[in-house]
């Protein structure tokens, strides 16, 4: 009984149920989604013991691979699914009462928005689990199309307009907000509020780039199929070799969309405006779920292309190309983050830089850094989701996304700003925080492999310095006393700030505090006790290092790779 398919069936059910049941009230939809993600997370954790004992394939419709489609349950894939559902649940919690800038039931919070977010989560989970290349393409498309819609649904901050106040909801107000939501979340599109040109243009650039990349992946699948007659990734591990130049062309085409989703140079020109336009709750899942799932798929494909026999002729050149791209991404990402004034763009470009480090670690021969790359990826997902959620909160309170204008908010909300600093320090890779172990491990592996890789190490160190500067700059300005140049700051603080229509001093709503606390705790826990996570990450890394006996032979029926 291959019941693990429920990991996919649950978000599908949510996406179908929500528009049907929550026609009247978007709050019901948000609660359904939140509870569903919690249930999925519990189910994933329940699966862990049996999967850690022995990884296994989940057959669909009764047909064995390579002719049928199979999902693969292993420490790597199940760990990634658990991470995806954790961030999905926390983002859903954030959306329950988010003080996000788009308080109207548009964006991620309307019934349709909740259905689209469920499909985005499904795309992430599917991408990580599937062992079939075309199936991965379909899940990339599902995640992509729901991301384009949600990014485009972002609304401009109601700075300067006393629009329906995006009232951060404490329990008392929850009923009134739900009532307000139900009135406006009726069937026809809610009353027209000016859409944001940044969100729509950001979404369109992202859509065109991602669709072009997906079509190139389809070309790669066509080339691979014409040479091997197969679509399943594990059967490439022990398949007769492709011609080296043909193999390199096919490998690069296949990697196009995952390189784009993990924001690797030159495919990351869309990142800035897409993240700036996205609603805050969704920006957290875009980087926490989308980029992480794409990175796991990238690592899975690289492990097959690196040591599988089908791509034996091209492994060397492929590693060289990816090492170069990774280092460039670190430099481009960090300098772009350094120069940005919009907080969400800073975080978006910073996660591009971090993904560059992941690619450098993944491109090392024989995957020595595989365990630390996975640890780095997990800690990045958690810390970046934390920062995006808090950025949404600060932006709502300051009425703008520019971090310079958020001066002094830290004094009003020391806990929120403190957690922001925890996330920032972890991303910089300081000891005591999760990011430290990952970055240290990757750097050690890069130095030990010598040769051109040392340049990549230099790029990573430069990137860390840039991270240090811009993260501390933001944290400092949060805690800085608001200078007195604009009239009496205290009085101005008392008056409802234009952005949130809610005094900046008002307490942090539970919907923001709880997810942030959980994520910050996770960052600290991973930092202090990395061995906790290593119990899952070590076997996952073994899977990437030796794809033959840890991956291919567990999926394909005995020896039937043809």
């Amino acid at each position: 009984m291959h019941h693990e398919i429920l990991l996919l069936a649950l978000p599908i059910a949510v996406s179908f149920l929500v528009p049907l049941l929550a026609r009247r009230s978007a709050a019901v939809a948000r609660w359904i989604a939140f509870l569903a993600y919690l249930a999925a997370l519990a189910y994933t954790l329940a699966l862990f013991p049996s999967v850690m004992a022995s990884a296994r394939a989940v057959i669909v419709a009764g047909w064995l691979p390579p002719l049928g489609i199979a999902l693969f349950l292993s420490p790597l894939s199940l760990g990634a699914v658990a991470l995806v559902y954790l961030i999905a649940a926390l983002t859903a919690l954030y959306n329950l009462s988010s003080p996000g800038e788009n308080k109207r039931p548009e964006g991620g919070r309307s019934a349709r928005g909740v259905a689209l977010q469920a499909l985005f989560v499904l795309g992430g989970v599917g991408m990580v689990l599937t062992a079939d290349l075309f199936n991965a393409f379909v899940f990339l498309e599902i995640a992509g199309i729901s991301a384009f819609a949600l990014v485009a649904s972002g609304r401009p901050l109601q700075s300067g307009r006393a629009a329906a106040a995006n009232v951060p909801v404490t329990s008392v107000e929850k009923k009134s907000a739900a009532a307000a939501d139900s009135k406006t979340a009726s069937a026809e599109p809610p009353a027209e509020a000016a859409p944001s040109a940044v969100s729509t243009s950001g979404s369109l650039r992202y859509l065109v780039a991602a669709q072009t990349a997906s079509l190139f992946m389809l070309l790669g699948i066509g080339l691979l199929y014409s040479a091997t007659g197969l679509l399943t990734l594990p059967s490439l591990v022990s398949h007769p070799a492709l011609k080296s130049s043909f193999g390199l062309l096919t490998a690069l085409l296949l990697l196009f969309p995952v390189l784009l989703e993990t924001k690797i140079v030159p495919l990351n020109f869309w990142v800035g405006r897409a993240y700036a336009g996205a609603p805050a709750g969704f920006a957290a899942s875009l980087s926490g779920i989308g980029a992480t799932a794409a990175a796991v798929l990238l690592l899975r494909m690289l492990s097959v292309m690196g040591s599988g026999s089908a791509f034996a002729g091209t492994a060397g050149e492929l590693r060289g190309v990816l090492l170069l791209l990774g280092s460039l991404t670190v430099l481009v990402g960090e300098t772009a983050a350094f120069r940005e004034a919009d907080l969400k763009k800073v975080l978006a470009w910073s996660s591009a830089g971090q993904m560059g480090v992941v690619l450098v670690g993944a491109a090392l021969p024989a995957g020595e850094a595989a365990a630390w790359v996975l640890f780095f990826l997990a800690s990045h997902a958690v810390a970046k989701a934390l920062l995006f959620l808090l950025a949404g909160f600060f932006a709502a309170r300051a009425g703008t996304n520019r971090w310079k204008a958020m001066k002094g908010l830290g004094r009003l909300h020391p806990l929120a700003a403190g957690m922001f600093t925890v996330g920032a320090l972890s991303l910089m890779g300081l000891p005591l925080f999760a990011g430290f172990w990952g970055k240290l491990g990757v750097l050690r592996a890069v130095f030990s492999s010598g040769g051109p890789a040392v340049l990549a190490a230099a790029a990573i160190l430069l990137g860390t310095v840039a991270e240090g500067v811009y993260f501390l700059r933001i944290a400092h300005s949060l805690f800085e006393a608001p200078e007195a140049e604009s009239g009496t700051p205290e009085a101005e603080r008392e008056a409802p700030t234009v952005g949130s229509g809610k005094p900046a001093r008002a307490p942090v709503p539970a919907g923001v505090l709880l997810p942030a606390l959980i994520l910050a705790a996770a960052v600290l826990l991973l930092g202090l006790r990395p061995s906790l996570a290593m119990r899952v990450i070590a076997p996952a890394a073994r899977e990437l290092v030796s794809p033959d006996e840890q991956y291919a032979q567990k999926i394909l029926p005995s020896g039937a790779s043809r």
Partner: protein
Amino acid sequence: MKTRNEILIHLGALLLVAALAVAAGLAVTADEPGLGLLDAGVESRPSARYVFKTVRAAPPEGGAVVEPGGKGYENGAANIVTAVVADYRVLDTLGEVLVLFAAASGVGLLIPIRRRSAGERQASPIVRTAVPLIMFLALITGAYIVLHGHLSPGGGFSGGAVIASAFILRFLAGRRPDPRGKRLLSALESAAGLALLTVGLIGLAVSGTFFAGFMPQGTLGSFASGGILVIVYTLIGIKVAAELSGLSADFVGGK
């Protein structure tokens, strides 16, 4: 009057596209050792096992035989492409239905309310009288294509699109989509999706894997063949028809 940098972009794009073409051409025609383009000849590919329906069991010693009227095949559909789409690789098709569902709800969420321009021409009487007849034909053809997907070319997607074109004709004939109709369509769409998911879960409960067949495969070539494939493709047809009509209604704009 093209600006200077527009010309630069054009030249740069031309160079990039030419370089890609040359690199791909060389890579595909290189005569190095190893497999290249079209080296797995069409008949020797594993996909021949879809044709001879020997995916699960190895072919009998006398070589696989598939013929109309034959019974007991692992998949009773005559149209091999439909068998691959709706039975062997059903997860792809489920994913694709979700892509269309995401697109339809994305359009519903994002499309601005239409501000009608004054010059809204009324549909001419000829169109208004002809449309019901054409609609009837389109519905019949669409229903046929959906229901006979496993016997002749066609199936849920193309049949659903033909049925949707019947509704689109109705919009062109001047009867604007009303909110009540749109709500009905989106309810039908979600219901068909849930039914599809339920069929998959019944397969999981009865035969142990998601979307596994739990009905007899019947005789190849007859209508009642292909086990649950007919149900799956019909539900997909209903869902696609409802989605595309809803999508078109959003684009055409309400009253």
